[in-house]
Each structure stands twice: as C-alpha cells, then as structure tokens.
C-alpha cells in the first residue's frame, strides 16, 4: 500500500459540468492528513481554521478540517494520486 492508501478512504468523482473530485480521508487519520497537507501546500486563505484554500505545484484546491478535500482541473486520477502522494509523504 502506498502513502495515498494509508490516508485516503475514498476518491469520489462528482456529477456536474465542473468535474470536481472529492477526496475523503480515513476518519482515524484525517487530522494527520490535513496537517501534512498544510505543511506542504501554500495557504492562500482559511476560515476559522476549518476550511483551507491551498496551492501546490500550481494546482489550487480546498481542504476541510472534516477530512475532505476538493480538487478540480486535474487531467486524471493518476495525476491526483501523484499529487496526493507528494502532499502526504
């Protein structure tokens, strides 16, 4: 199992023209996952330390303290997994 599988419970494609992808972190590791991402990515904005707008390698995304993240504009699931892999190392 790679680092992505250690932290990620599910990756959900959404319906809608936007083609957003939602990442749901494992409940018992969500705090750790969010902490790691916050350490690596650049914080652009946050609300009450609960919702974070971030950029990493020119890709902007949002992470929620509830253990979910929303990505858009990614070309493939592999690109997402590679990105998550770097963020969660």
């Amino acid at each position, binding site marked *: 199992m790679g680092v992505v599988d250690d932290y990620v419970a599910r990756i959900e494609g959404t319906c*809608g023209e936007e083609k957003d992808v939602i990442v749901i972190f494992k409940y018992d590791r969500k705090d750790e996952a969010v902490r790691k991402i916050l350490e690596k990515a650049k914080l652009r904005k946050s609300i009450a330390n609960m919702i974070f707008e971030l950029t990493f390698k020119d890709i902007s995304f949002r992470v929620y303290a509830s253990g979910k993240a929303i990505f858009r504009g990614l070309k493939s699931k592999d690109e997402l997994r590679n990105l998550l892999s770097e963020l969660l190392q």
Partner: protein
Amino acid sequence: MLDPYKVREDFPILKRKINGHPLIYFDNAATSQKPKQVIEAVKDYYENHNANVHRAIHTLSQEASQLYEDAHEEVAKFINAKSVEETIFLRGTTEAINLVAYSLGHHALKKDDEVVVTLMEHHSIIIPWEIVSKARGFKLRYADINPDGTLDYEVLEKTITDKTKIVCFSHVSNVTGVVNDVKRIARVAHEHGALVLVDGAQSVPHMPIDIRDLDVDFFAFSGHKMLAPTGIGVLYGKRSVLQQMEPFQGGGEMIKDVSFDLKSRRCSISWNDLPWKFEAGTPNISGGIGLLEAVRYLKKLGMENVKAHEFMLTEYAMKRLQECAKVVIYGPKDPSGKSGIIPFGVEDLSSHDVALFLDNYGIMVRSGFHCAQPLHKTMKLQSSARASFYVYNTCEEIDRFVEVLKEASQF
C-alpha cells in the same frame, strides 16, 4: 399543525453530531430519515414473523403474508386507489417506470407510436424510455421546457398527438420543486388516447394524493423518500390497464399455473391475480412492512399538515436566502406552486464546494446534477446545490444554514 420538535423525538439519527455540529439534514429529496416506529416494525418482523410470503400454510408465513398484504391495503387507501389490485410493490420509482417502459414498450408499442417526456425529467424517466425506444424502434419525443425549469404547457400539449401512446412526466421536479399540473396534462393525453405515467417520487411523501382525482394510468413512488426503508416502492396502475399488460419479470409468485405440454415440450402459463402478477420472486417483505408503518406515521401527522409545514419552511428559507448577497436561487422564486426543494448556488463556488462547506458544519445538502442533466443544461447550470425539507426540519435549522452560507460567501 405539525410540531416538528415533537416529530424529531421519533428520529434517532437527528440526535447525531457531524463534525462536532448538530446534524441538519436537508437532503430529503434524495432520501428521508426513518422514525423509530418504522425501524421497530422492521426489527419486529425479523425477530418475530420472518418467513416467505404466500403459498405456505405454516403460522409464520401466514403472519408475514398478512403484514405484507396489509401494507398493500394501507398504501392503496393512502393514495385513494380503487383496490389493492392496483398497488404493485417494487424496488422503487425507477423499477416502477422500467416496468411500464419494458412491458408496454416490448409488447404494446409499434414503430410509428410515440412516447412523450419532457426535458424536466429525472434520468429514471429518460433512460428507460431511451433504452426501450432504441430497442423497439418507436419514437421518443422530448417537450422543451421554460429556461427557469418550469413546464411550458403549450409546448407539451402540442407535442402530444394522436400518435402519442404514453405521456410520462414527474409530478414534482426533483431539482426545482415545481409542482406540475398533472390533471391538465392527463386530460390532454387522454383526449389523444394516450396513457399517462407520472413519477410521484417527490410528491407522495409531501402532499395528499388522490389518484382517482388525478386520473392517471400509472403513478410511481419510492418508500425511502417517505420514511420507509430503501428498496421498496410502488407502482399504482389502473386495474383495467394492468390486466391487459404483459408481466415485466418472470418467476415465482407471479404465476398461477405452469403446465408442461409433453407434445410441444413447452410450458403454458397463466398469470397470477393483480398485483402479484407484477411481483416476481420473493418480494422485499421487511421493506413492505416498513412502508406500512411509514404510511401509518404520515397519516397520523396528516398530509395536509405535512404540506403546510413544508410550504412554511420553503417560504421562510427562500426569504432568508435572499439576504445572502452571493447566493442565487435557481428556478422559480415564488414558493407557491413549489414543494420543499430549493436549488441554489453561491457565486464563485462550485455546488460541490458549497456542499462540502455545509458538511463541515453538519449540514447535509446534495450537489451536482441530481440525476437531471438535461434540465441543468436547459437552465444553463453547470450543477446545483439543493436543500430539501421534510417533517422534522425547523426554521432554526434554516437560520443556521443561512448563517453558514453567509460564511461560505466570504470565501
């Protein structure tokens, strides 16, 4: 009047906290929560009466059969059907629509015949008719709708011609909550000799339904949107129409007699009586019993009270949402003529962003196309967030929802 605070005491899940916040459940158009009475009825069935229904003479089977038949009886009365023969239990609205599409599409419709649907519809209407019309070669015609997602009655009425054999549409839109004039469309369809199939998934749970007054030939709805378990739903069909139809699925329960002819080496089959002719195989008995209890619960609340409560919530929510500068309500802005469904968006945020933002605060709404992609295209929406209310929702929950949306607007 309905007291939502008293109602809430019956719903164990509403005591939950999500992400440290009290649960606010505004995804009722997708599925409703279940009261303890329904949960207990299902539990009681499995603990005390579990057996397969019909054609067994032992005590447990008799008890299970009685409960399952009582459920049909109660549902028939709930929608004012003429008899229990007109209420077929299936998995849900989708299976009910498929039953009609496959049975009539394969056995009754010819190449020059037409089926009319509208662009407002849920995929559960569009897809079965697309599949069957392609397989059988009859024509599927889509009636255009207004840009705000409401029906254009004149266009729809012009689309219905003497070639039309079936008109299929929803009573209430699952996206906009708009209530369609079923009687008007049914009258026009019948004048042309067409049958009428209505998707009542978003109406039966929320308003009184008098099926005889609506004068439709088929009416489909799901138990899980009206407090019952998932996997149980109903197809109402006029007895005279159902009697002429071929079964949708074959198997046990739906036959009266299967005799093997030694000479032709084939079986001749006679179908069971209605409604069992359309309920092949072991049915969802526990689901049916859960539905029985759900209907009893709703009857106790009073469907006029349910309707009034949801109207009050919708009117209040629409008024409060208009306070949020960046929040846009899609579809009609007037709550009259709508049920408790509000599609909306927040400027600069996708519907999924909005849903995740609200989820962070324990508020459950749906985002995306809501299985109605052609409707979103007509309304020029990439997707939408949707809040939908039910008997246990309160104005305080709407206040909290608006407060969080205002916060989201600042993002």
